[in-house]
């Protein structure tokens, strides 16, 4: 049984705090085994009963669980390979040992969460996953991480409490604590809606859905890169797994699907809009996780809508879009984080404004980052395009079937998805080109930079091949996912025909054919150059042309002006606080910096915090030190209870 295998190998590591090689070697091997194992039995269901006196823990591995474990192992393998070298950044061996220890625990707990099928143990591993990631984040220990982690822990804990409450209500209705008994419980619609809201917002808080996404851009940049890669690529997916798992129990109704879609669209749009204004690479990538979670939710929303309206094909189409994007997002987001990590590993600099021209010095990282950037902006030959294409198809198919408001919302979702695509392209053009291309902006970074160690690059290239394979091999991958979907919705959809991929409405696209045409078309310009090639073409290297003035690297466009224009037009959303200081005299140095604030922080969170601390201040009065007043509390309480007894 895989779980026992994985647990044994990882736990073996847990007790012996060795240096980084062992620290990340074993999880790499374990996840390799995991990938092979999960890929094999995406459809079988096994069970593992672990006898604990308090509650018999039961772990069943059904296709849904297997799919998510496959995703975890895939990214886990790459991240642990990458981690072997990356851990050097944390010099003292105790720290690396501790990091390895927590890293393994993190992997084990995620696997357990995905396969737990008992309310108590699911909650135990769910909270443990948060606890371990809390420690991992604290490895680069700075003032900012303290604020980030407390925010992260509190939101995760409140989400956990909501999930626990929901599951317990469910279990009291179903009469037992095991998940499979929840399947057919008759729950009144009102309670079902309450449960759905509890689950959606409980898991949503972990996934970073729009209103509760605030912790994500704080926590991920603070963590070491391969940890934040694992967190954003995979941990968020466990929340999606949670939403799907819980909604399979409840008797669905249409409005839930539409609600998920609305939230998905909002998260997508706002995620990418905020990503554009970030200077810190990892914060930018974190906001992109919010955006991609939005896209996944769009797909799943259509899936749930289909299940609610009983239209199985629509449900299957929706889920394919959603689940396919889950695996795609895991691969290219992991890749991007690892890429950013290797940049930081070499330059110790997260702020994009200072980096530049690293493409020359770090060619492999540059190439890997480029593939990741193209995949995330869903450019055709790669996997991002295929999953967004599925989502488009499912939205169209849903729009045709729906009533007046339904079509309107679905079409608006399509437009939002398209807009997100454009903004994503803009954002990743900015990120890639500012870091890796152009002239270097900071001399000492430039000479220090060199290609990151072999294993880190190997880790990245595992994910690069995964991206390309998922892109070109779309028909094969999609048919595999259909197996999982038949488990969820009870009916599949013939998706793949040869090299093309079919959607519910019959429209087909074949990424393979496209790349063939693209490559053939590449020869055309080459032929043209052949024909006219009779000139003495000596290519001279010159400085870029700056209308005559001496070219300096400062003249080059940097990250913020690239999107500066967008910030002006969208200032109603960003309300960035512009800091403009005019120093002395006419030719004085002008200092200008504007930082976009996440306005949701003021709208939702500050009032809550103010409310609680205000309440606490009010209550503080009762503990004022004077004994007489304390004594009188006892008497007042006595009087109160007597009144209660008489009238109660």
């Amino acid at each position, binding site marked *: 049984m895989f779980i026992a295998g994985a647990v044994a190998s990882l736990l073996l590591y847990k007790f012996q705090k060795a240096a980084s090689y062992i620290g990340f070697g074993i999880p790499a091997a374990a996840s390799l085994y995991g990938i092979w194992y999960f890929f094999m039995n995406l459809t079988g269901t096994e069970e593992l009963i672990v006898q604990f006196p308090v509650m018999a823990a039961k772990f069943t591995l059904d296709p849904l669980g297997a799919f998510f474990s496959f995703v975890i192992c895939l990214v886990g393998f790459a991240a642990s390979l990458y981690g072997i070298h990356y851990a050097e950044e944390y010099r003292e061996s105790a720290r690396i040992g501790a990091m390895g220890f927590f890293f393994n625990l993190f992997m084990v707990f995620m696997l357990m969460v995905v396969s737990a099928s008992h309310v108590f143990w699911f909650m135990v591993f769910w909270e443990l996953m948060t606890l371990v990631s809390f420690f991992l984040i604290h490895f680069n220990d700075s003032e900012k991480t303290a604020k980030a982690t407390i925010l992260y822990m509190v939101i995760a804990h409140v989400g956990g409490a909501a999930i626990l409450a929901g599951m317990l209500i469910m279990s009291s209705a179903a009469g037992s604590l095991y998940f499979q008994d929840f399947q057919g419980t008759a729950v009144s619609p009102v309670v079902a809606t309450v449960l759905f809201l509890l689950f959606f917002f409980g898991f949503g808080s972990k996934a970073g859905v729009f209103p509760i996404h605030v912790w994500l851009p704080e926590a991920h940049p603070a963590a070491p890169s391969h940890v934040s890669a694992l967190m954003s690529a995979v941990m968020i997916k466990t929340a999606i797994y949670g939403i799907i798992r819980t909604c399979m129990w409840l008797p669905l109704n249409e409005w839930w699907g539409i609600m998920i879609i609305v939230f998905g669209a909002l998260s997508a749009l706002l995620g990418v809009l905020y990503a554009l204004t970030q200077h810190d690479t990892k914060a930018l990538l974190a906001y992109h996780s919010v955006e991609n979670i939005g896209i996944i939710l769009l797909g799943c929303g259509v899936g749930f809508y289909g299940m609610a309206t009983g239209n199985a094909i629509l449900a299957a189409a929706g889920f394919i879009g959603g689940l396919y994007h889950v695996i795609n997002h895991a691969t290219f987001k992991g890749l991007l984080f690892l890429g950013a990590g290797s940049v930081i590993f070499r330059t110790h600099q997260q702020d994009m404004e200072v980096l530049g021209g690293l493409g020359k010095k770090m060619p492999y990282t540059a190439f890997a980052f480029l593939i990741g950037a193209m995949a995330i902006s869903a450019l055709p030959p790669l996997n991002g395009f295929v999953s967004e294409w599925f989502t488009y198809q499912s939205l169209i198919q849903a729009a045709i079937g729906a009533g007046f408001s339904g079509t309107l919302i679905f079409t608006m979702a399509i437009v939002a998805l398209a807009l997100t695509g454009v903004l994503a392209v803009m954002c990743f053009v900015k990120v890639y080109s500012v870091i890796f291309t152009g002239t270097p902006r900071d001399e000492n970074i430039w000479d220090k930079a060199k290609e990151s160690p072999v294993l880190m690059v190997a880790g990245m290239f595992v994910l690069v091949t995964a991206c390309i394979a998922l892109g070109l091999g779309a028909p094969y991958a999609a048919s595999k996912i259909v197996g999982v979907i038949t488990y969820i919705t009870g009916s599949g959809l013939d998706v793949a025909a040869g090299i093309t991929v079919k959607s519910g409405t019959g429209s087909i696209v074949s990424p393979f054919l496209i790349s063939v045409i693209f490559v053939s078309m590449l020869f055309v310009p080459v032929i043209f150059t052949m024909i006219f090639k009779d000139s003495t073409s000596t290519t001279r290297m010159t400085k870029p042309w700056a209308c005559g003035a001496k070219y300096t690297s400062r003249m080059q466009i940097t990250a913020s002006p690239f999107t500066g224009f967008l910030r002006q037009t969208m200032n109603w959303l960003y309300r960035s606080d512009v800091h403009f200081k005019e120093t002395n005299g006419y030719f004085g140095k002008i200092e200008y910096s504007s930082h976009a604030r996440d306005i949701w922080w003021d709208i939702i969170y500050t009032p809550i915090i103010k409310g609680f601390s205000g309440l606490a201040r009010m209550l503080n009065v009762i*503990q004022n030190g*004077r004994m007489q007043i304390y004594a009188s509390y006892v008497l007042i309480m006595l009087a109160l209870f007597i009144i209660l007894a008489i009238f109660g």
Partner: protein
Amino acid sequence: MELGLIVGLSFFLAVMSFAVIEVRNLNRATHIYTLQTLTLVLIFLAIAWEHSIGTLYIWAGTAFLTKVLLVPFLILMIIKKTGIKHEEAPFGGLFHPFISLGVSIAVAIMLEPIFIRFSLLKLQIPILVSIFVFMMGILGLVFRKSAVKQILAYCLFENGAHLTLALTAYNAPETVEMGILTDAIFSVIIMGALAMRFFHHFGSLDTSQANELKG
């Protein structure tokens, strides 16, 4: 009304307890307290004689030994050691006595029917007075600032409780009664020791000065 003697003694007891709380001079307050416990013992004897209950004689004896002799001696020793004769103004200021009087009488009237229903000796006035004394003790603790006065208040409500116990359930096993008395004595000793240390550190016995622990 039943026999005049018990009723008279109980009224006398009530007046004495009011005086104990109100008198500012600590020495005189302790003397009044000793007088009060004496009347309590007399009540016990009167009831025992009246209703010919054997156990009450033992109760009266032990009460006399501990409460009339030992407790006042301890309190006087504390006053001698700290040398503080006079007590500060109480918490409620001028109208404090009226509040405590009013509240205690009200509570007494309210609780009395409940106690009377199951008590063995259906003597209405003494139960009323015992609850009154109990409440006077509690309110004394709440309103009074001086440590010694608080110890006196503690002994007061101890007497009240003792009288109630005697009236409602005199046939309780002896060990119980002994337990309560030893508790009373020990708490007076401990409070006294603490008061000495309080005086040593705060320079006076005014407990309202001690309000550093806030929030």
